[in-house]
Protein backbone atom coordinates (compact mmCIF):
# COMPACT_ATOMS: atom_id res chain seq x y z
CA UNK A 1 0.00 0.00 0.00
CA UNK A 2 2.77 2.34 0.99
CA UNK A 3 4.61 1.35 -2.18
CA UNK A 4 1.63 2.08 -4.41
CA UNK A 5 1.10 5.45 -2.77
CA UNK A 6 4.77 6.27 -3.20
CA UNK A 7 4.67 5.25 -6.85
CA UNK A 8 1.67 7.48 -7.53
CA UNK A 9 3.33 10.34 -5.65
CA UNK A 10 6.60 10.12 -7.56
CA UNK A 11 4.92 9.57 -10.93
CA UNK A 12 2.89 12.68 -10.17
CA UNK A 13 6.14 14.52 -9.55
CA UNK A 14 7.44 13.32 -12.91
CA UNK A 15 4.29 14.45 -14.72
CA UNK A 16 4.58 17.77 -12.93
CA UNK A 17 8.13 18.24 -14.22
CA UNK A 18 7.03 17.31 -17.75
CA UNK A 19 4.11 19.76 -17.64
CA UNK A 20 6.35 22.50 -16.26
CA UNK A 21 8.84 21.95 -19.07
CA UNK A 22 6.08 21.91 -21.67
CA UNK A 23 4.78 25.24 -20.43
CA UNK A 24 8.19 26.86 -20.57
CA UNK A 25 8.55 28.83 -23.77
CA UNK A 26 12.33 29.07 -23.63
CA UNK A 27 12.64 25.31 -23.25
CA UNK A 28 12.97 23.94 -26.80
CA UNK A 29 10.55 21.23 -27.91
CA UNK A 30 12.09 17.80 -28.35
CA UNK A 31 13.63 17.30 -31.76
CA UNK A 32 13.48 20.90 -32.92
CA UNK A 33 16.50 22.37 -31.21
CA UNK A 34 17.94 25.49 -32.74
CA UNK A 35 21.68 25.53 -32.20
CA UNK A 36 22.16 29.10 -33.39
CA UNK A 37 21.35 30.61 -29.98
CA UNK A 38 23.51 28.14 -28.08
CA UNK A 39 27.20 28.20 -27.36
CA UNK A 40 27.44 24.84 -29.16
CA UNK A 41 27.03 26.66 -32.46
CA UNK A 42 30.51 28.10 -32.06
CA UNK A 43 31.99 24.63 -31.59
CA UNK A 44 30.75 23.67 -35.06
CA UNK A 45 32.09 26.83 -36.62
CA UNK A 46 34.69 26.12 -39.31
CA UNK A 47 37.34 28.46 -37.95
CA UNK A 48 37.09 26.97 -34.48
CA UNK A 49 37.14 23.41 -35.86
CA UNK A 50 40.38 24.02 -37.73
CA UNK A 51 41.84 25.79 -34.72
CA UNK A 52 41.23 22.84 -32.42
CA UNK A 53 41.83 20.30 -35.18
CA UNK A 54 39.54 17.49 -34.09
CA UNK A 55 37.01 16.09 -36.55
CA UNK A 56 34.99 14.59 -33.72
CA UNK A 57 33.38 17.64 -32.13
CA UNK A 58 32.51 15.75 -28.95
CA UNK A 59 36.18 14.94 -28.48
CA UNK A 60 37.06 18.56 -29.18
CA UNK A 61 34.73 19.61 -26.36
CA UNK A 62 35.68 16.85 -23.90
CA UNK A 63 39.44 17.32 -24.22
CA UNK A 64 39.74 20.80 -25.70
CA UNK A 65 37.11 23.30 -24.65
CA UNK A 66 36.12 21.51 -21.46
CA UNK A 67 39.38 19.71 -20.71
CA UNK A 68 39.24 20.98 -17.16
CA UNK A 69 36.03 18.99 -16.58
CA UNK A 70 37.76 15.89 -17.84
CA UNK A 71 40.63 16.44 -15.43
CA UNK A 72 38.05 16.68 -12.67
CA UNK A 73 36.34 13.57 -13.89
CA UNK A 74 39.43 11.36 -13.87
CA UNK A 75 39.97 12.76 -10.39
CA UNK A 76 36.52 11.51 -9.37
CA UNK A 77 37.39 8.05 -10.64
CA UNK A 78 40.80 8.28 -8.96
CA UNK A 79 39.33 9.14 -5.60
CA UNK A 80 36.69 6.43 -5.77
CA UNK A 81 39.34 3.84 -6.71
CA UNK A 82 41.33 5.13 -3.76
CA UNK A 83 38.30 4.80 -1.53
CA UNK A 84 37.52 1.26 -2.67
CA UNK A 85 41.12 0.22 -2.00
CA UNK A 86 40.91 1.98 1.36
CA UNK A 87 37.77 0.08 2.38
CA UNK A 88 39.06 -3.29 1.19
CA UNK A 89 42.48 -3.12 2.79
CA UNK A 90 42.75 -6.33 4.80
CA UNK A 91 45.70 -7.70 6.69
CA UNK A 92 45.68 -11.01 4.86
CA UNK A 93 44.28 -11.02 1.37
CA UNK A 94 43.33 -13.75 -1.03
CA UNK A 95 41.58 -14.07 -4.36
CA UNK A 96 37.83 -14.43 -4.27
CA UNK A 97 37.08 -18.03 -5.22
CA UNK A 98 34.53 -17.99 -8.02
CA UNK A 99 33.92 -21.76 -7.75
CA UNK A 100 34.33 -22.08 -11.47
CA UNK A 101 36.90 -24.29 -13.14
CA UNK A 102 37.97 -22.90 -16.50
CA UNK A 103 38.96 -25.41 -19.17
CA UNK A 104 42.08 -25.39 -21.31
CA UNK A 105 40.54 -23.49 -24.20
CA UNK A 106 39.21 -20.72 -22.01
CA UNK A 107 42.44 -20.41 -20.10
CA UNK A 108 44.56 -19.89 -23.19
CA UNK A 109 41.94 -18.37 -25.43
CA UNK A 110 41.39 -15.60 -22.94
CA UNK A 111 45.02 -14.53 -23.25
CA UNK A 112 44.65 -14.27 -27.01
CA UNK A 113 41.40 -12.37 -26.56
CA UNK A 114 43.10 -10.05 -24.11
CA UNK A 115 45.68 -9.22 -26.76
CA UNK A 116 42.96 -8.48 -29.29
CA UNK A 117 41.12 -6.29 -26.79
CA UNK A 118 44.30 -4.39 -26.06
CA UNK A 119 44.79 -3.67 -29.77
CA UNK A 120 41.16 -2.61 -30.19
CA UNK A 121 41.34 -0.28 -27.21
CA UNK A 122 44.57 1.19 -28.54
CA UNK A 123 42.82 1.87 -31.85
CA UNK A 124 39.80 3.42 -30.13
CA UNK A 125 41.94 5.65 -27.95
CA UNK A 126 44.26 6.90 -30.67
CA UNK A 127 41.41 7.58 -33.11
CA UNK A 128 39.32 9.40 -30.51
CA UNK A 129 39.60 12.70 -32.36
CA UNK A 130 38.47 11.17 -35.67
CA UNK A 131 35.83 8.55 -34.88
CA UNK A 132 33.46 7.87 -31.97
CA UNK A 133 35.29 6.56 -28.94
CA UNK A 134 38.31 7.85 -27.16
CA UNK A 135 39.91 7.63 -23.78
CA UNK A 136 36.97 6.57 -21.66
CA UNK A 137 35.64 3.62 -23.65
CA UNK A 138 39.19 2.64 -24.61
CA UNK A 139 40.32 2.60 -21.00
CA UNK A 140 37.20 0.71 -20.01
CA UNK A 141 37.94 -1.93 -22.67
CA UNK A 142 41.42 -2.39 -21.21
CA UNK A 143 39.80 -2.86 -17.81
CA UNK A 144 37.34 -5.38 -19.28
CA UNK A 145 40.31 -7.27 -20.71
CA UNK A 146 41.85 -7.46 -17.26
CA UNK A 147 38.48 -8.57 -15.92
CA UNK A 148 38.44 -11.36 -18.51
CA UNK A 149 41.83 -12.59 -17.31
CA UNK A 150 40.51 -12.66 -13.76
CA UNK A 151 37.47 -14.67 -14.77
CA UNK A 152 39.35 -17.14 -16.95
CA UNK A 153 42.00 -17.99 -14.39
CA UNK A 154 41.13 -18.77 -10.81
CA UNK A 155 44.57 -17.94 -9.50
CA UNK A 156 45.21 -14.83 -11.54
CA UNK A 157 46.40 -11.77 -9.65
CA UNK A 158 47.50 -8.73 -11.53
CA UNK A 159 50.11 -6.35 -10.26
CA UNK A 160 48.20 -3.78 -8.23
CA UNK A 161 51.34 -1.78 -7.52
CA UNK A 162 51.83 -1.43 -11.27
CA UNK A 163 48.32 -0.06 -11.68
CA UNK A 164 48.92 2.45 -8.90
CA UNK A 165 52.14 3.66 -10.52
CA UNK A 166 50.44 3.91 -13.92
CA UNK A 167 47.53 5.81 -12.38
CA UNK A 168 49.77 8.26 -10.58
CA UNK A 169 52.07 8.86 -13.52
CA UNK A 170 49.25 9.30 -16.06
CA UNK A 171 47.43 11.72 -13.76
CA UNK A 172 50.55 13.71 -13.03
CA UNK A 173 51.40 13.93 -16.73
CA UNK A 174 47.89 15.24 -17.45
CA UNK A 175 48.36 18.07 -14.94
CA UNK A 176 51.92 18.69 -16.13
CA UNK A 177 50.71 19.05 -19.74
CA UNK A 178 48.17 21.55 -18.40
CA UNK A 179 50.89 23.45 -16.59
CA UNK A 180 53.06 23.40 -19.74
CA UNK A 181 50.16 25.11 -21.47
CA UNK A 182 50.26 27.75 -18.76
CA UNK A 183 53.99 28.26 -19.24
CA UNK A 184 54.39 27.88 -23.01
CA UNK A 185 51.10 29.47 -23.99
CA UNK A 186 48.85 31.70 -21.89
CA UNK A 187 46.47 29.49 -19.94
CA UNK A 188 46.15 26.15 -18.17
CA UNK A 189 45.55 23.16 -20.51
CA UNK A 190 46.01 25.36 -23.59
CA UNK A 191 47.11 23.60 -26.75
CA UNK A 192 50.78 24.36 -27.40
CA UNK A 193 51.36 22.01 -30.36
CA UNK A 194 50.34 22.86 -33.91
CA UNK A 195 46.92 21.32 -34.58
CA UNK A 196 47.67 20.11 -38.13
CA UNK A 197 45.10 19.09 -40.74
CA UNK A 198 41.65 18.10 -39.58
CA UNK A 199 40.96 14.42 -40.22
CA UNK A 200 44.51 13.09 -40.03
CA UNK A 201 45.74 10.73 -37.34
CA UNK A 202 48.56 13.01 -36.26
CA UNK A 203 46.54 16.13 -35.72
CA UNK A 204 44.62 18.07 -33.08
CA UNK A 205 47.67 19.05 -31.02
CA UNK A 206 47.60 17.82 -27.44
CA UNK A 207 44.20 16.10 -27.75
CA UNK A 208 45.49 12.62 -28.72
CA UNK A 209 48.22 12.81 -26.07
CA UNK A 210 45.72 13.67 -23.36
CA UNK A 211 43.31 11.01 -24.58
CA UNK A 212 46.05 8.35 -24.33
CA UNK A 213 46.76 9.47 -20.76
CA UNK A 214 43.04 9.40 -19.94
CA UNK A 215 42.76 5.93 -21.44
CA UNK A 216 45.66 4.62 -19.34
CA UNK A 217 44.33 6.27 -16.23
CA UNK A 218 40.74 5.12 -16.62
CA UNK A 219 41.89 1.61 -17.53
CA UNK A 220 44.22 1.24 -14.55
CA UNK A 221 41.72 2.78 -12.14
CA UNK A 222 38.82 0.54 -13.12
CA UNK A 223 41.12 -2.49 -13.24
CA UNK A 224 42.31 -1.82 -9.71
CA UNK A 225 38.69 -1.38 -8.58
CA UNK A 226 37.87 -4.77 -10.16
CA UNK A 227 40.85 -6.35 -8.42
CA UNK A 228 39.72 -4.91 -5.10
CA UNK A 229 36.25 -6.32 -5.57
CA UNK A 230 37.76 -9.73 -6.25
CA UNK A 231 39.84 -9.86 -3.08
CA UNK A 232 38.61 -10.84 0.31
CA UNK A 233 39.95 -11.32 3.76
CA UNK A 234 41.60 -14.65 4.32
CA UNK A 235 39.62 -16.44 6.96
CA UNK A 236 42.26 -18.68 8.42
Amino acid at each position, binding site marked *: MKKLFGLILFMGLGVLIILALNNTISFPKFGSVDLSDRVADAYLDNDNVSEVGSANIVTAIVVGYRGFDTLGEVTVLFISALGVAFLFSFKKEKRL*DLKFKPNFMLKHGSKLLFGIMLVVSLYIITHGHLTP*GGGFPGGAIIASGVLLLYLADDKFRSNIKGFKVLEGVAGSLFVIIGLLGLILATSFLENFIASGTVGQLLSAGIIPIIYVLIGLKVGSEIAS*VVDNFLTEEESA
Partner: protein
Amino acid sequence: MLWFDIISGIVGGLMLILAFLAINSKKLINSVLLLSGLSMLAVVAFVMLKAPDVAITEAVIGSGLVTSLFVFTLLSTRKEAKK
Protein backbone atom coordinates in the same frame (compact mmCIF):
# COMPACT_ATOMS: atom_id res chain seq x y z
CA MET B 1 10.09 11.13 -38.12
CA LEU B 2 7.06 8.98 -37.51
CA TRP B 3 9.12 5.80 -37.34
CA PHE B 4 11.48 7.47 -34.97
CA ASP B 5 8.63 8.31 -32.62
CA ILE B 6 7.20 4.79 -32.75
CA ILE B 7 10.53 3.08 -32.08
CA SER B 8 11.52 5.56 -29.39
CA GLY B 9 8.13 5.06 -27.77
CA ILE B 10 8.70 1.31 -27.67
CA VAL B 11 12.22 1.70 -26.30
CA GLY B 12 11.09 4.21 -23.69
CA GLY B 13 8.16 2.05 -22.60
CA LEU B 14 10.39 -1.03 -22.33
CA MET B 15 12.88 0.92 -20.26
CA LEU B 16 10.19 2.04 -17.84
CA ILE B 17 8.91 -1.55 -17.48
CA LEU B 18 12.42 -2.88 -16.89
CA ALA B 19 13.13 -0.15 -14.35
CA PHE B 20 9.92 -0.91 -12.48
CA LEU B 21 10.71 -4.65 -12.44
CA ALA B 22 14.28 -3.98 -11.31
CA ILE B 23 13.06 -1.91 -8.38
CA ASN B 24 10.40 -4.40 -7.34
CA SER B 25 12.07 -7.75 -8.01
CA LYS B 26 12.47 -10.02 -5.00
CA LYS B 27 15.88 -11.41 -5.88
CA LEU B 28 18.83 -9.05 -5.90
CA ILE B 29 20.59 -10.79 -8.78
CA ASN B 30 17.50 -10.36 -10.98
CA SER B 31 17.37 -6.72 -10.16
CA VAL B 32 21.03 -6.33 -11.16
CA LEU B 33 20.51 -8.19 -14.44
CA LEU B 34 17.44 -6.08 -15.25
CA LEU B 35 19.58 -3.00 -14.65
CA SER B 36 22.07 -4.37 -17.16
CA GLY B 37 19.25 -4.83 -19.68
CA LEU B 38 18.04 -1.32 -19.02
CA SER B 39 21.52 -0.03 -19.68
CA MET B 40 21.60 -1.94 -23.00
CA LEU B 41 18.33 -0.26 -23.99
CA ALA B 42 19.86 3.07 -23.02
CA VAL B 43 22.63 2.32 -25.53
CA VAL B 44 19.94 1.90 -28.20
CA ALA B 45 18.41 5.20 -27.13
CA PHE B 46 21.79 6.95 -27.36
CA VAL B 47 22.35 5.60 -30.86
CA MET B 48 18.91 6.79 -31.89
CA LEU B 49 19.64 10.23 -30.46
CA LYS B 50 22.80 10.44 -32.62
CA ALA B 51 25.29 10.17 -29.78
CA PRO B 52 27.74 7.44 -30.84
CA ASP B 53 30.46 8.44 -28.36
CA VAL B 54 28.09 8.17 -25.45
CA ALA B 55 26.66 4.90 -26.76
CA ILE B 56 30.08 3.24 -26.87
CA THR B 57 30.98 4.48 -23.41
CA GLU B 58 27.67 3.41 -21.91
CA ALA B 59 27.93 -0.02 -23.58
CA VAL B 60 31.37 -0.71 -22.14
CA ILE B 61 31.12 1.01 -18.77
CA GLY B 62 27.43 1.12 -17.93
CA SER B 63 26.28 -2.33 -18.89
CA GLY B 64 29.57 -4.19 -18.70
CA LEU B 65 31.72 -3.05 -15.82
CA VAL B 66 29.04 -1.77 -13.46
CA THR B 67 27.10 -5.02 -13.77
CA SER B 68 30.20 -7.07 -13.07
CA LEU B 69 30.93 -4.98 -9.96
CA PHE B 70 27.38 -5.59 -8.72
CA VAL B 71 27.68 -9.32 -9.42
CA PHE B 72 31.04 -9.59 -7.64
CA THR B 73 29.59 -7.90 -4.57
CA LEU B 74 26.69 -10.35 -4.52
CA LEU B 75 28.98 -13.35 -5.16
CA SER B 76 31.46 -12.50 -2.44
CA THR B 77 28.75 -12.14 0.16
CA ARG B 78 26.74 -15.20 -0.83
CA LYS B 79 29.69 -17.37 0.10
CA GLU B 80 29.93 -15.88 3.55
CA ALA B 81 26.27 -16.53 4.13
CA LYS B 82 26.77 -20.23 3.58
CA LYS B 83 29.41 -20.54 6.26
